[in-house]
Structures are given as structure tokens and as C-alpha cells.
């Protein structure tokens, strides 16, 4: 561990090396593999969430001005639910799965055994400005890049702890690197986790770029990263050096297609709560933009205005039920999107801002050009552009012309449209007639595809994400077919053919010389 000039210890490559070695020794001891250890850690997480509910909510309020309900519901309850499910199902998940064997390998038996991967790294959103690599060149726009490359701080606790729960359930030792964008929450976690969990097997490393880079130089058995695509590439390239498998939970522009002939009020409310009701649009599965027909657009805008006012009042900048923007970089990025010439005249609702408090009101834009900035990058904020098309089916081409999103939403009562949507739009997950809820369904894998990521978790998928499924075959010495061994002859070829099919009649015929 190096020391800075002020005498503070710095977490550098050497420190990361020592840490990783420590964890390897602990893992090698077998401690984390036992059922008892896993259950005790999971129960402790639940205890920690219960005993420090207020502290956690306070930290999230400090970092994000997150409304208490969102903190407690979306964050704490989701984490506790993951633990409860794991505690209930762990015995079953850990059991080897019997595998069928065929006549080809008779007599034999086989099973698939779940084992932990070993020592894993969980990174929950990380800031990697170009500054680090192209220091001289991009210094002056570093803060913009900084803003663009920062990402997921929305569901801070969930995104740090849910993967932790997964790794524990699978029996690994681990390092958690929480997001530095939520400093109060990050240091609270760094304080609480060692108190409640086995601090020899579960380490928390706080920090930003240099600490994460130091960690990425080490060899891990798995890396689980939540964040954006730019950094996802860096993580995967670092993992490639050690052939480390990765799960990348990234983002994208999650579209909402709104059809006609639907209950527009219900649809609007569900869109609002998915967009602004979850960290004010700063979430990976927030509806990013809407596509609807020209005929429906006006009605939709009116409904959105009405419901937004019902939820957040006439002065949403003052509403306690809306999170603020995480930091000034993001604030600058979002106001930049609004101030672009092509777009500034398209605001039909909202647009108010308060720089001192880092607040932007829920803002709706209608008819922005597809080549505007706001339609090119993931918004990750309280701005909602609405695009219009003549026929609703045209929306699919628009969606498919971009990269595959993490989520795609469709509001419709038309079965045929729904089928078409499911078949032609590829996304991590799809919800029909609602938004964001699939996040809470444990029987559904949660993850992206293409630019929105690879791998998935939640429920048993979490356990599987951190597990190696080892194939085991049991054989005896009885039944040794000489056909397997050299010297090879044409006769053996005939029998070999039959054996490989695994079909009893074919084998019999071959044995009797009838084929």
C-alpha cells in the first residue's frame, strides 16, 4: 500500500495484489463453500438492512435526495427479498442435478455439480473519464466525458448488494467496489459490511478510477460490472487478460411504444412511475423515450401533464417525491441536451431547473429530430422525448435502428401488434402494459443483450451467474467395449456407428453383424 504525501494510504496495484491473494487463501480454505457460511452471511445482510434502515435512507437522501419510499422500497426491500429467496432456496440450488446418460455410455451415471467460481469482483458503477488515458488531449473537456461515462447510481444499494447476495449464495469470496458517485452511501456500506459480514471473505474497496484500475489488474474468477458501455468495454478487455468471464449490466435507450385504444390514464401513470418515480429517470430501465402515432400524441401529452401534476404538484422542483440530479456533471449534461438548438423549442411541459439544488423538473419534448443528441445517447434523467409515426408498426424500425436496449415497453390491447413486437424487437427484457416491474420478478433473468450487456441475474439466475456447473461422469470397469480401442478396423467402424447413435436396435443389429 503506497502512501500519499499527506501520509494517507492509497489503494494501489500492490494493495490490490495483497487483497486478492488474501481472498484466494480464504477461498482455498473452503470456508465460503459451506451452506452454513452462506446462510449466515445472507441472514446478516437482512439484519443489517433492518437495523440500519434509517441510516441507509439518510445516506441515499444525502447523495441523491432520494425520497424515503424509493430508498426503502426499491433498495432495501429488494435486497432483503433477494436474501430471503436465496435463504429459502439455497439447499435446493446447491444440490447436484442428475443428468441422463444414454446407451452410448452405458453403464454410467452423470450429474452436474454447482461449485463457486472462486474470488470475484463486483463493481457497481465507476467513473472512468478519458482524462485517465488521454490526459493531455482531453483535459479541457474531461468534465463532459466524466459526465457521459458516469452511470448507474440510481439503485445504489440494490446494485451493490444484489450481486453481493448472488456471489455469497454461490459460495465465493469477493471484493465489492461501490459507486463513488454516491459517497455517503459508499462509505456507509464500507463501514457496515465489515461489521455484519465475514470481513475476511468479503471486502469493500472504496474509491474511483485508480482504485478500480488497480483492482482490474488482478486476476479474478468472475467480474460483475454494472454501469455503462464505455467502461464495460474496459472491464471486459481487462478481464480478457486472465480469461475471466464477466457479467456486464449496462444500459441503453429503453423505448416505450404507446398504441391507440388503450386505457391512456393507466398507461400514463405507469410510464410516469417507471420514469420519474425511480430516481427521477436516472435508472438503467427507465423509459427513455416514447414512440406513438401522430393521432395519439396530443392525448398522451395531455394525460402525462395531468398525471404529473397529480403526482408532483404544480411546482415539481419543490416536490419531495422526486430525486435530484446526482451531481453537477450530470446536471450540465442534461441541460446541454435540452439546450441543443434542434430541441430547445420542442419542450411541451416542464423544462424548469434549479442549478443550485441540482434539480430539473419532469420535462416532456414532442417531435425532436432523431439525430439530436437527446435521441442519440441514453438520457438517464427526467427528460422524456416523444417521437411520432404514422403507423404504430413503424416504431419497431426506429427501435431496431438503434442498439439493443436493456428494456423495451409496449402499451397495447392489440394481440397481433404485441406478437410482432415480441418477435421483432430485441432487448434485455420486455414489459407489456407496464414499466420496470420485471426487475422484481425473481423467475425472470435480468440482463441485457448487445450494447445493453451480457449475462443476467436475479432469483436463481443470480446463483448461476457466480457458479461453475461441473459435469461429473461415473463409470465402472464393467462393460468395456473393445470397439473403442485401436487397432481400428472397418468392423469396429460399423459398431462404433451404432454405439454413437445410442439406439438399442441399431446396436443390436451391429453386434449381430446385420448392418
Amino acid at each position, binding site marked *: 500500500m503506497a502512501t500519499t504525501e499527506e501520509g494517507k494510504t492509497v489503494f494501489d496495484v500492490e494493495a490490490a495484489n495483497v487483497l486478492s491473494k488474501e481472498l484466494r487463501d480464504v477461498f482455498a480454505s473452503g470456508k465460503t463453500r459451506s451452506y452454513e457460511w452462506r446462510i449466515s452471511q445472507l441472514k446478516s445482510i437482512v439484519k443489517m438492512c433492518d437495523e440500519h434502515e434509517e441510516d441507509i435512507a439518510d445516506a441515499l437522501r444525502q447523495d441523491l435526495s432520494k425520497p424515503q*419510499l424509493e430508498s426503502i422500497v426499491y433498495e432495501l*426491500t429488494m435486497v432483503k427479498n433477494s436474501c*430471503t429467496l436465496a435463504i429459502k432456496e439455497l439447499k435446493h440450488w446447491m444440490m447436484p442435478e442428475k*443428468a441422463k446418460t444414454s446407451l*452410448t*455410455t452405458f453403464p*454410467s451415471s*452423470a450429474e*452436474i455439480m454447482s461449485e463457486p*467460481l472462486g474470488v470475484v469482483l463486483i463493481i457497481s458503477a465507476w467513473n472512468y473519464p478519458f482524462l485517465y488515458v488521454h490526459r493531455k488531449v482531453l483535459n479541457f473537456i474531461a468534465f463532459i466525458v466524466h459526465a457521459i461515462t458516469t452511470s448507474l447510481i440510481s439503485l445504489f444499494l440494490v446494485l451493490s448488494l444484489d450481486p453481493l447476495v448472488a456471489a455469497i449464495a454461490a459460495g465465493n469470496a469477493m471484493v465489492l467496489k461501490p459507486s463513488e458517485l454516491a459517497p455517503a452511501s459508499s462509505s456507509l456500506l464500507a463501514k457496515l459490511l465489515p461489521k455484519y459480514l465475514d470481513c475476511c471473505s468479503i471486502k469493500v474497496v472504496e474509491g474511483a478510477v485508480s482504485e478500480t484500475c488497480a483492482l482490474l489488474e488482478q486476476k479474478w474468477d468472475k467480474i460483475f460490472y454494472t454501469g455503462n458501455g464505455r467502461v464495460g*468495454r474496459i472491464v*471486459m*478487455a481487462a*478481464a*480478457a487478460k486472465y*480469461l475471466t*468471464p464477466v457479467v*456486464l449490466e449496462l444500459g441503453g435507450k429503453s423505448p416505450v411504444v404507446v398504441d391507440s385504444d388503450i386505457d391512456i390514464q*393507466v398507461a400514463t*401513470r405507469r410510464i*410516469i*412511475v417507471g420514469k420519474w418515480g425511480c430516481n427521477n429517470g436516472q435508472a438503467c430501465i427507465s423509459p427513455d423515450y416514447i414512440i406513438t402515432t401522430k393521432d395519439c400524441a396530443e392525448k398522451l401529452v395531455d394525460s402525462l401533464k395531468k398525471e404529473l401534476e397529480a*403526482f408532483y*404538484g404544480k411546482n415539481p422542483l419543490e*416536490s419531495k*417525491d422526486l430525486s435530484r440530479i446526482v451531481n453537477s456533471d450530470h446536471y450540465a449534461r442534461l441541460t446541454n441536451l435540452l439546450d441543443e438548438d434542434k430541441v430547445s423549442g420542442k419542450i411541451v411541459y416542464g423544462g424548469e431547473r434549479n442549478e443550485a439544488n441540482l434539480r430539473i423538473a419532469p420535462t416532456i419534448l414532442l417531435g425532436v429530430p432523431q439525430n439530436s443528441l437527446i435521441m442519440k445517447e441514453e438520457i438517464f434523467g427526467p427528460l422524456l422525448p416523444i417521437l411520432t409515426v404514422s403507423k404504430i408498426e413503424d416504431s419497431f424500425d426506429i427501435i*431496431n435502428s438503434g442498439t439493443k436496449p436493456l428494456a423495451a415497453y409496449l402499451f397495447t*390491447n392489440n394481440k397481433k401488434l404485441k406478437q410482432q413486437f*415480441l418477435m421483432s424487437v*430485441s432487448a434485455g*427484457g420486455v414489459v407489456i*402494459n*407496464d414499466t420496470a*416491474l*420485471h426487475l*422484481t420478478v*425473481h423467475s*425472470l*433473468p*435480468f440482463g441485457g*443483450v*448487445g450494447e445493453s450487456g*451480457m449475462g*443476467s441475474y436475479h432469483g436463481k439466475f443470480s446463483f448461476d451467474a457466480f457458479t*461453475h456447473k*461441473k*459435469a*461429473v*461422469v461415473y463409470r465402472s*470397469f464393467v462393460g*468395456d467395449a473393445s470397439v*473403442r*480401442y*485401436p*487397432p*481400428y478396423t472397418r468392423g*469396429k*467402424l460399423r459398431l462404433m456407428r451404432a454405439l*454413437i*447413435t445410442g439406439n438399442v436396435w441399431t446396436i443390436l443389429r451391429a453386434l449381430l453383424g446385420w448392418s
Partner: protein
Amino acid sequence: MEGLEGTLAELRDTFRSGRTRSVAWRKSQLRGMIEFVQDNEERIFQALDQDVGKHPVEAYRDEVGVVAKSAKLSLSCVEKWMAPRKGDLPLVFFPASAQVMPEPFGVVLIMGSWNFPISLTLDPLIAAISAGNAVVLKPSELSPTCSSFLAENIPKYLDPKSIKVIEGGIDVCEQLLQQKWDKIFFTGSQRVGRIVMTAAAQHLTPVTLELGGKSPAIMDSSSNPTNMKVIAKRIVGAKWGSCSGQACIAIDYLLVEERFASDLIDLLAKTIKQFYGENPRESKSYCKIVNKNNFKRLLDLLKDPLVEASVAYGGSVDEEKMYIEPTILLNPPLDSQIMTEEIFGPLLPIITLDDIYESIDFISSRPKPLAIYAFTRDEKFKKQILSRTSSGSVTFNDTLLQFLCDSLPFGGVGQSGFGRYHGKYSFDTFSHEKAILQRGFFPELEPRYPPWNSFKLHFIKLAYAFNYIGLILLLLGLKK
């Protein structure tokens, strides 16, 4: 490069048109694959003989037979595999439905290897087809006869608009890796695996890496003489009987207790003669080394004087015929190259231990291999091997069979790779599992929506905990 980009653009258009997604297309391609291997069996045998000197029995067992079996299984199961799977939904979501729907990734790249140039290209191809993808197949240039055979004949049996074979060497590989793929499936060495994954990272392309490693065999004392003969056959078969040791799941080295070593070597020597005759160089059942580079690499492993001194059997070579005699070494130094790198050839080091239980630490202190083979009847030892070592697979009292079991995932862990295939795992490897949640507009749960208050907080807490009784009590005003 332009030709390649044009090819890729064509495949993207084809995929976008939805052509590869229909059941009919997938089944027709799978049938085409079966026809391909059946019609061309003799020519495939000849190509394999040309490239690696493989006998038709080995060629059928490891290549043609595998492909035919895989295609037939996929043909009979593909519709079932394609069907969306229902997911459980808690009552609180009612009415709603949850499903997982597999969908193809898109345009995928499959890079095959030279030791099983037919099965290690076509088996992944079958996987990609059954999952509905468009494919570029890049066979290994180190098996040129098979590569050009595939390039010439695949278009005659499979849809040339959706499946392309691209031949070439390192420069072509580099160009391919610069493109954006929706998935890359690579079989080969760890060194190239790193290059593939690094290239894939630039486009966030998911990869499956089927690599190798040093797959050990362990033999303890719990076998009687009759079984010993069978064990010896299985060891010889797994080392030299599969492409002369040039196979990812070949036994790399053997661990045995000191007191059994010399008897074992005698028995192995006897078995080798039984299989390959007095002069294996003349045996048609014995493969050659694939090329001069690998030949030289293997000879270099023996150059170390301490390694050379440990040769207990064999050791003769014939460069013209690319032949290396089945060779057994006894206790070469553990830090020599032959004991630190994957051998991938007909050299078998035997390492002796005082107690066979030491083999567990020996293996677990080294990179995780693709396979572990353990000849033992000691149940306690088996359990220890399973729980204290990690590998792609473990096979007790036999070798190589895990490859033939369609219900078992075939793949590595750690340095031996990640991802898996065979059977349904093949389909899954080339599919994205899309989560689908469907709801109606009715009923509406008011507590979902702002403005927030403590009632709503309480409600949602109970809902998340699936505490239905609590919810009812709350709604009836009976819960504080």
C-alpha cells in the same frame, strides 16, 4: 476487407429479414447438415487422413458421428427448445404472465480448431443454426484440406445467404475479429482465446471460449489386476487414441503413487504395443503431428536434459512423417516446460507421489483444467476430488466419455475457458433469453403512485414481502 464487410452486411440483412428465425429454416438446415455428413463420409475421412492422419474409426467416432448425432438431436428438439418458458409470478402481480423467450443473437462468428476440424466447426454451427442465427464459419488454416472441403461443400447443402465459410490464416482472423459480431464461439488455445476476448470487448460481444489446459489423470491403488488392464486401455486410449494426444480433453499427465509407477509403465507399454503394434510409425490407427511448428514445439519439450533423462519409454521420432512415438516420462522436473504448458501431443509425463491424496493439492495449486480423470473406487477420495478441485468436468474410472453425453455441459472454467455447449446447452449458448412480463390495464394498485406517504410505504413493503394477510389487514384499516 471490403469483401468481408460486404459479406457481413449481407448476413445482417438476411438476419433482419427474419429468414433464419423460422422453425422451417432451422430444420431444413439441420437436415442439410445430416445429408452433408452422410453423403460425404468417405471424402471427409480422406480429408482427415490428409490433415492429421486420422483413421476412419477415429474420424467417425470423434468427427462425423458427433456431427450426425448432434444434428439429429437438434432436429428433434429444436421446436421444444424454441418455445418460451413460463416463469412463476407471485400473486401480487396478478393478473400477469412471465415468460422467458429465447431469441437468436444475430450474426455470429465460429472459429474452429485443427485437431477436430470437422466436429469442432460443425457442432457449434449446428448450435448456432438451431438457435436461429446467421453464421460465419472460420475453419482452422492448420487443417487446410478439411478447411477447403468445408468451404467448397457447405454452400451446397446449407443456405448460402445465411451461412458463410471464410478460409484464411492469421490476417483473415484479425480482420474478422475487428468486425462487430453478436456472438463469438472460439475453440483453441488460451493465448488466442485472450486475443479473441480482447477483440470482442471492443464491441461488447459475448464469447464462448473452449480452451484447454493440462488435464490430469489420477490413479490410486484400489484396482485389482483385471481392472488395471482396463484402466491401462482407457489411459492409452485417452492419451494417444484421440489425435495422438492433440486433443483438449486428452490426458496431459498422470499422477500415481511411487510404488505403482514401474508396473504401470510396463502395463502402458504393453497396451501401446497391443494398440499400435511393434512399430507405431507404420500403424494406420495412429495420428501424425499436425505440422512442423507443433512437431518442433514437442521436440523442444524433450530437449531439456533433465526431461530427456526422464524418458522411460518411446522417444523416437520421424520428422518426414511428422511422427513422434508414444512416449512416457517418469518424473520430469515440475518446473520444466513439459509440466507447465499444455503438452497437446503424444508425450505422457507420470508424476509420482508418496500418497495419492496429495494429487488433490497438486491439481488445485495449478490452473483449472478442462477435464480431470480419476481411477479410483475410494468414495471418500472421489468426494474430495469433487469438492477440492475445480475443472470443466470430472470423469471417474474412464476417459473422454463426458464429450458424448448430451445432457452434460461441455466447457471449461478458469484458464480452460468459459461458456459451454452440447445438447440443449448448444442452443442456449447461441440464444439470448429475453424476459417478458405481460400485464393488463386492470386492476390498478393506487399505492404504486406518488405522492408518497407512509400508508403507501407500508403497502409496498408488505407487497414486496408477499405478505398478503398483512396487505388485507392494512387495506381494511386493521394494521398500523
